[in-house]
């Protein structure tokens, strides 16, 4: 139990660190987009703008996802595990993954890697969907167990 709590704390710290990284990417979006285009040897105002928009969109979606993940971890930390509210959080994460996949796919004409990222986001969404299904069953089993006297 103690190890599990430590693991949750590490996960929470990871979420915070990732958020700071994401924040850094958004703050330095201009420099990052310029650096990337220099590395791949492509130029153009349209490409720079598209990449910056992509970073901003990813920043917003990432922040929402991280906030939901943090809330989920916080619930688990407070021993609120197999509850309907966690299923709702997982469902929200799942739908945001699907939406982000669709949004990122829009940038495929500009950057081919956007297709790979969109596919990865859709795959994560599917993975979360499976986990949500398992979680829903676990919630049902727990409720039956709680109401067995």
């Amino acid at each position, binding site marked *: 139990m103690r190890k599990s709590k430590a693991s949750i704390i590490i996960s929470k710290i990871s979420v915070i660190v990732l958020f700071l990284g994401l924040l850094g990417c958004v703050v330095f979006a201009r420099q990052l987009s310029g650096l990337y285009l220099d590395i791949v040897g492509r130029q153009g105002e349209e490409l720079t703008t598209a990449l910056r928009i992509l970073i901003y969109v990813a920043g917003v979606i990432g922040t929402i996802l991280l906030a939901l993940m943090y809330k989920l971890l916080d619930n688990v930390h407070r021993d609120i595990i197999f509850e309907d509210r966690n299923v709702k959080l997982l469902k929200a994460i799942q739908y945001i993954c699907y939406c982000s996949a669709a949004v990122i796919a829009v940038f495929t004409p500009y950057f081919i890697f956007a297709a790979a990222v969109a596919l990865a986001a859709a795959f994560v969404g599917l993975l979360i969907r499976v986990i949500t299904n398992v979680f829903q069953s676990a919630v049902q089993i727990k*409720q*039956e167990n709680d*109401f*067995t*006297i």
Partner: protein
Amino acid sequence: MAIIVNLDVMLAKRKMQLGVLSSRVGITPANLSILKTNKAKAIRFSTLEAICRELDCQPGDILEYRADDE
């Protein structure tokens, strides 16, 4: 719910309070309250046996089947 728990009826017949039954059968008052208010999803044979022993009754006195449309 098709199965009705008539624990409150039996408690009234035996003039026993829920807290007293709770201490005698070793089940928390909160759990007995769940049973009494028909919120329980299932009941263990051991629980039913303890309640029947303390209330000196049969399982049929506590549990009753009633069709949903009634």
